C-alpha cells in the first residue's frame, strides 16, 4: 500500500497542537505573508507538519487549504511525516559531492537500512539530504541535529551514529 502524503498527529498529542496554536494566535496576526513563518513555527515545535495543523493555519490566515498545502509542498524544508529522535542531514552540495559525499550517504543508508526522508524502525534516526550547509571548505559535511561535522569520512560518520545509539540506549536502561 502506498503511504499517504499527509499524516495526522496521533490523538494523544492533540493537546500539544492546541497549546501550540494558542501561542501562534498570539504571535501572528494571520496575514497571508505570515504563512511561511507559521509553517516554520509549527515544524520547529512538532518536527513535521501534521494535516490538522495545515488546516488550522488555513483557517487562521483565511487562505484556502489548497493554497496552504500548495505552498508547504513547494518548499524543501517542510516535512509531512514524523521524524526520528535524531536528524542526520548529509550535505549533497557541489563541494561535498566532489569530495565523495554520495559515498558517505550510501554507507549511512546501508548501515541504517533507510533512504533519505525515512525514519528508522526504532525511531532513533531520520536521514535527510541538504543542498549545501555553507561549510564547503570542510567538505564533506554532515549535520547531526544542530551540530555540524566537517572533513568526514565513512568511518567517522558511522562512529557518530554509533555514539548516538549508545547514548540513547544508555538512557533507556
Amino acid at each position, binding site marked *: 500500500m502506498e503511504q499517504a502524503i499527509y499524516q495526522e498527529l496521533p490523538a494523544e498529542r492533540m493537546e500539544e497542537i492546541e497549546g501550540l496554536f494558542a501561542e501562534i494566535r498570539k504571535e501572528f496576526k494571520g*496575514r*497571508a*505573508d*505570515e*504563512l*511561511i*513563518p507559521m*509553517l*516554520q513555527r509549527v515544524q520547529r515545535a512538532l518536527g513535521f507538519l501534521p494535516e490538522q495543523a495545515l488546516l488550522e493555519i488555513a483557517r487562521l*490566515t483565511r487562505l484556502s487549504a489548497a*493554497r496552504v498545502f*500548495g*505552498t508547504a509542498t*513547494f*518548499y*524543501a*524544508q*517542510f516535512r509531512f511525516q514524523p521524524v526520528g529522535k535524531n536528524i542526520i542531514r548529509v550535505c*549533497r*552540495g*557541489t*563541494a561535498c*559531492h*566532489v*569530495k*565523495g559525499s554520495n*559515498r558517505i550517504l*550510501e*554507507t549511512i543508508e*546501508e548501515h541504517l537500512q533507510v533512504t533519505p526522508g525515512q525514519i528508522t524502525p526504532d525511531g532513533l534516526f531520520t536521514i535527510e539530504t*541538504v*543542498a*549545501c*550547509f*555553507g*561549510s*564547503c*571548505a*570542510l*567538505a564533506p*559535511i554532515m549535520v547531526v541535529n*544542530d551540530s*555540524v*561535522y*566537517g*572533513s568526514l*569520512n*565513512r568511518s567517522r560518520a558511522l562512529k557518530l551514529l554509533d555514539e548516538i545509539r549508545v547514548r540513547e540506549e544508555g538512557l533507556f536502561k
Partner: protein
Amino acid sequence: MDFTLIKERAEKNWKALENLRQPLIQIGMGTCGKAAGADEVYAAAKQTLKQMNLLGRILQVGCIGTCYLEPIMAVRKPGGPFIYYGNLTAKRAEDILLSYLRDGDPKPEWAVCFTGEGPVDGIPRFEDLPMIKPQVRIALRNCGIIDPENIEHYIARGGYSGLMRALQMNPEEVVQEIKDSGLRGRGGAGFPTGMKWEFARKAPGQTKYIICNADEGDPGAFMDRSLLEGDPHSVLEGMLIGAYAIGCNEGYIYIRAEYPLAIKRLETALKQMREYGLLGRNILGSGFGFEIHIKEGAGAFVCGEETALMASIAGGRGMPLSRPPFPANKGLWGNPTNINNVETLGNVSAILAQGAKWFAGFGTEKSKGTKTFALAGKVERTGLIEVPMGIRLKEIIHEIGGGVAKGKKVKAVQTGGPSGGCIPADLFDLPVDYESLTAAGSIMGSGGMVVMDEETCMVDIPRYFLSFTADESCGKCIPCRLGTRQMLDILNDICGGKGTIEDLEILKDVSETVQKGSLCGLGQTAPNPVQTTLRYFHSEYEAHILGKKCEAGVCKPLFHYEIDPETCNGCGVCSKKCSVGAVTGEKKKSHSIEPDRCTKCGACYEACKFHAVHIC
C-alpha cells in the same frame, strides 16, 4: 544620540582592547570553525586561563578565510603581536596557552602566522602567507578581526561613517557615487548597481522596498554566510545607504534557513542598531527613517531569483514572473523594489566611506573592485578569499589555493554553481572578470569556486547539477521543467553505460532550447554545466559512450577496481575495510577483488596506503 559621540566612545573602547593589559585570545566561531571543533577549543581556552589564574579575554570572531586551518585561535600577550594557530584540538590549545602565556614560548612550530608588531622568530607575517598575499579585502575588511556581535567594534573601524556621509549628500548624489565606483551586482548577473538604484529611485510610487538577497542557493558557496556571520553591520549599513538613495523606508533580508548562526547575528545587529539610533523613524536625527525585517527562506533554490523571492516573501510559492514589468517598477506587493546581494551591499558601505575613486582603483576596466570566492573542492587550501577583479584563475588555484593534493592532476574549476560551467585547466590563464568568464561559457556567479581533479568525472558533474536543477525547477515553464528532466535522463544513461553517440546531439539540441525558451534565470542557465563539459571534455563523453569507461572512477557501471599484485604487500587493510567480503588474500601475500561481490564503494581504494588498488 550624536554619531560623533558614539564614534568617540567606540574608538575609546577599541583602543582599550588594543591596549589590554591582559592576554587577548581570538577564536574563529563561524559555522566552519564550529564544524571543525571551535567550541571545544573555546572551552579549553577558558579553562586554561582559569587554571593559570590569568584574567585574559576571549573574543569570538568570524571567519578569517583560512577555513582549511579551522579551528583557529590567535593569542596576544599585552603589547605583543597576535600569533595564529590552526588545526587545533582542545589539548593542543591548552598546550599552546600554557607554553606561551606561562612559559613565554610561542611554539613557532605550531604557529601559522602573526599579525601586528613583528617580526616573530620562525613565524611568517599573515600578509605574507601565499594564501593571503594576492588578496585584497574590501567586503571582508572586518571578518575575523572584530567581534560581529559588538557594534562598537564595527564603528571603531570606520563603520557607519559611510552612512553619515551619505546622509549629508542628496540621494541623487549617492546614486551617482555608486555609479562612479563602477560597482556591479555580486549576486551573479553583474548588473551595475548604481543604474539599478536609479531605476528604483525614478519609479513612480510612494511605497518602495529594498531587499537584501541572502538566499545563497548555489551549493558550494558560502561567501554571503561568512560575511553575515563575520561582519553583519557592513551589509546592514549598505542597505541603509541604498534605502536612502532610492527613497524607501522599509527593507527585507531574505536569508536561507540553513544559516541559523547568520540569522542570529543579524538579529543581534538589528537590536544594537536600534539601541544606537541607527534604525527607526528618525535615524541619528537626519529625518530619514528605516525598518528592516528578516524573512527566512524555506529551501527553494529558485527563490534566489528576484520575482520568485518576492512571491515567497509575500507568503506564496516561489514562482518567477516574466518581465517586464521589472521589480524596480513593480516588485514586492506591486511596489517599486530594489534587490541586492549581500556582498554588493557590503561593498556599498565601503564605497561611501572611502569614495568611488578609491574603489574604482581596484579591478579591471569593466569589472571594478574585488570579488569574494568560496574556494572549495580538491584544493589544498580551502577557504573564503577576496581577490581583485582581473586576477588569473591560476593565481587563485595554485597560489592562493596551493593546487591540488600531491600526486593528483587538476582538471577543471567550476564557477557559478548550477548556473555556471566548468573551465578546463588549460584555460587557467583566464582573468577573473564578468566578460571573460562568460566568454568561456561559465559565469562569475555569486562566488562558488569548486576545484576538480582527475578523480572528478566531467560527465557526472553536469549530471549532478542537472539532478539539482531538475529538482529545483519550479515547474512553471515547460522548457525548464521538461528540458532539465530530459537532459538528466540522457546523462543518467551515459553514466549508466547505456548512452549512444546520437545522445550527444540531442543533449546539445535540448540544452539550447532550454537556454532560449525558459522563463527565468534558473532554466536559462541550467544548460551551462552541460554545454561547457561538452565543449571542453568531449573526449570523456566519448569514453563513456564508446569505450564504456569512466576513468575518474565515479560512474559505477563503467569501471572496476583491481589490486596490482606487484605493489600489494598483503597488509590486509583493504580486506578489513571491505563490508561485503569482496577482497580476499592471505596475509603478506597479494590480495585480489572478486568482481561479482564488489559494490565499488571505494573503501579499499581509499584505505590502501601503497596505492595498490587501481581504477580500471
